[in-house]
């Protein structure tokens, strides 16, 4: 399973999908994850993806085969 972690005040919530199966549910989850990442980036959030056992910030277009994405809050001084 692949997943998108949405970090929020609840700790986090996830959107999960299986990129290896083509079902209505999986396609919907992939669409949802892609839309969330696009909107979050537009509003100043950063996105990371899992590489090995850690995360790295990532500017590349959404890829449903990435194991794990995470959305990071925009940062501000003060």
């Amino acid at each position, binding site marked *: 399973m692949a997943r998108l972690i*949405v*970090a929020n005040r609840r*700790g986090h919530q996830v959107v999960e999908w299986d990129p290896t199966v083509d079902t209505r549910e999986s396609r*919907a989850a992939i669409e*949802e994850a892609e839309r969330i990442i696009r*909107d979050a980036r537009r509003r100043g959030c950063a996105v990371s993806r899992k590489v090995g056992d850690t995360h790295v910030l990532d500017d590349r277009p959404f890829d449903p085969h990435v194991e794990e994405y995470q959305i990071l*809050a925009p940062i*501000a001084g003060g």
Partner: protein
Amino acid sequence: MTVFDWLRRFLLLDEAAGRRGGAALELPWMHRWHHVPKRSAGPDFRREDYRRARENAREVARATLGERLWTRVQLQGYLDVPSRRFPGLTYRLRIGRRIEVRCAPGVESPWPFAYLCINPTYPLPEEEFFAQLYLYVRDREDEVIRVAAPQPWDQMLGRTF
């Protein structure tokens, strides 16, 4: 978008909420948080919500940093990230606190004060934001330099809890 498309999308979103145990997905960048007091998640949060949020945050912070870094921060209480922009300068990150700027002997800091205040723009559990801030400092130092507010003293962050 036709009525059919809208209905399909609505039903699929409802299905997705079901997969998350019925909780609607909260997208914090879609909301305004200025009214929420410092060190708070909002007036609708109860003691049990804070407990669960911190538990979730710990899990995701650990996954974000990886086992090696997570263990290190648990043991020593901080993570040091060497600057790529300023040779000899190190950012010391501590959970829930301002970044401490440390300079090697003979190296002058670009900031007038030793602490940098950087907050998330919406409330987050402090362990979760710690992991996020680590990624920003390591992978996007220029953004950190751009927003950092230098401060003369150490203090808890205001937007984390």
